[in-house]
């Protein structure tokens, strides 16, 4: 089944998942979220890709939040189902066995910010404009942002971002720790590709084990985490000898 809201390109072991909703901004509508889920399943299964890059390049936005025109009519029940749909996508990205890199090419707001945070690494263009506009719309985010954001930038920056609904620049996002690297607009895509290709050249078993372990570290006590690490390291070692 073809996609309406995104494109998939695989090149040099990197699977590019490019949001392209055909309008000025990539809105996370119900259709877009469903297509993203399908695309992640496809790329996880496709052995030609070791790493997934999620972006809205070369468009103006990475992704903005939900479609307000759609959302304004939501009942509490609709809202609950919508949050569940979004959360299931983010959980799929986190548990995906391949590293996921968000390449933030431009405007990244609300649900788009949550989408970026469910990725493993965030690379930004200097043209990045990022924020969470829930408090301006009379809502909070429903896509795990209230928990992801404090875990990434700390509670104080998270509260500031939610309370002000302000739009932040790439430099401020870098200072807060919301993005990992910032590249100049002109060399953005080339830098993203070479970064992704470098990671894609590593053995997938090791990448995948590292991803799982680091995700587990967030919610596991240190001793159990270390036990997991020992088991995984041993397991990988055995696998490598067999190969």
């Amino acid at each position, binding site marked *: 089944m073809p996609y309406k809201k995104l494109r998939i390109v695989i090149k040099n072991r990197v699977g590019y998942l490019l949001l392209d909703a055909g309008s000025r901004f990539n809105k996370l509508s119900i259709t877009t979220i469903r297509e993203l889920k399908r695309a992640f399943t496809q790329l996880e299964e496709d052995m030609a890709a070791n790493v997934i890059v999620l972006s809205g390049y070369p468009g103006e936005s990475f992704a903005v939040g939900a479609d307000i025109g759609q959302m304004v009519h939501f009942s509490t029940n609709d809202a609950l189902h919508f949050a569940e749909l979004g959360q299931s996508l983010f959980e799929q990205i986190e548990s995906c066995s391949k590293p996921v890199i968000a390449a933030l090419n431009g405007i990244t707001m609300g649900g788009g910010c949550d989408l970026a945070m469910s990725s493993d690494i965030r690379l930004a263009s200097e043209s990045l404009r990022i924020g969470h506009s829930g408090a301006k719309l009379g*809502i909070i985010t429903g896509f795990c942002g209230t928990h992801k954001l404090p875990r990434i930038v700390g*509670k104080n920056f998270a509260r500031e971002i939610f*309370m002000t609904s302000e739009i932040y620049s790439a430099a401020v996002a870098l200072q807060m720790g919301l993005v990992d690297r910032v590249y100049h607009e002109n060399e953005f895509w080339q830098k993203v590709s070479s970064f992704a290709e470098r990671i894609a050249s590593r053995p997938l078993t090791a990448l995948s084990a590292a991803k799982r372990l680091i995700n587990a570290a967030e919610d596991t006590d240190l001793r159990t985490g270390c036990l997991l690490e020992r088991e995984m390291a041993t397991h990988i070692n055995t696998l490598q000898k067999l190969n």
Partner: protein
Amino acid sequence: MPERVCTIQSKTNGITTVTIPGNHSASARDILEAIRHQTNALSSKNEIKGVLLTGSARGFCCCQIENSATTGDAAALSGFGQQVMFILEKIGKPCITAIEGECSGLGLEVALACDFIVASRAACFGFPGIASGLIPFCGGSQRLARLVGKSKAKELIYSGDLIDAEEAHRIGLINRLHPEGEALFLAEELLAHICTRSPNAIRIGGEVVNAGYDIDLQTACMLERDAFALCFSSFDQREGMQAFLDKRTPQFKGE
């Protein structure tokens, strides 16, 4: 006597400034009593939209930590201090600390229990208590470690050294760094801006951020999902989204 250690100023824009410079004759208990009293009073008033805590150029919540006669007294003071910080954390409105001078000991404990800190270049931060054998006692060790990481928290608490505002900004202890003498004014401006947003979304969002931080991610996301759905039965949600679609400024009611 709560009135002795703090002054209150409420403006028509809904912002109340609580000034607690403290002094060297005030006791920690006096300051904590004052904060508890003011927090309870401000929290129940609907006309108050945001709270700004500040000190003077000299300091914020300066006090003598009384030499407790017994271990029991010390435990009681710590228990009381922790309880007051939880009350402050649950004030239910945006609450920012603006720092122009020294913010140390009890002052830093209080600042850490607010939403975030805005400071000027003249500010400095730390827990100097270690010199007299003291550690933070109002939850400061826990809040600091969660905010800036374990290593930085240990460095500050073990050494007792004060760090300057620039270093505090670099490690994420303060959110915004301003020129000397401008922290209070700019913090108030920021708070006024925050007060144009939905009070309902801010209150629910703050609660979910706080509650979700100490539980596993899956449970926290369920909590968020339910709180998100709850927003869709509010006036603020309908007004906020309609205003967005009409390209006008929303008029929130906080309900």
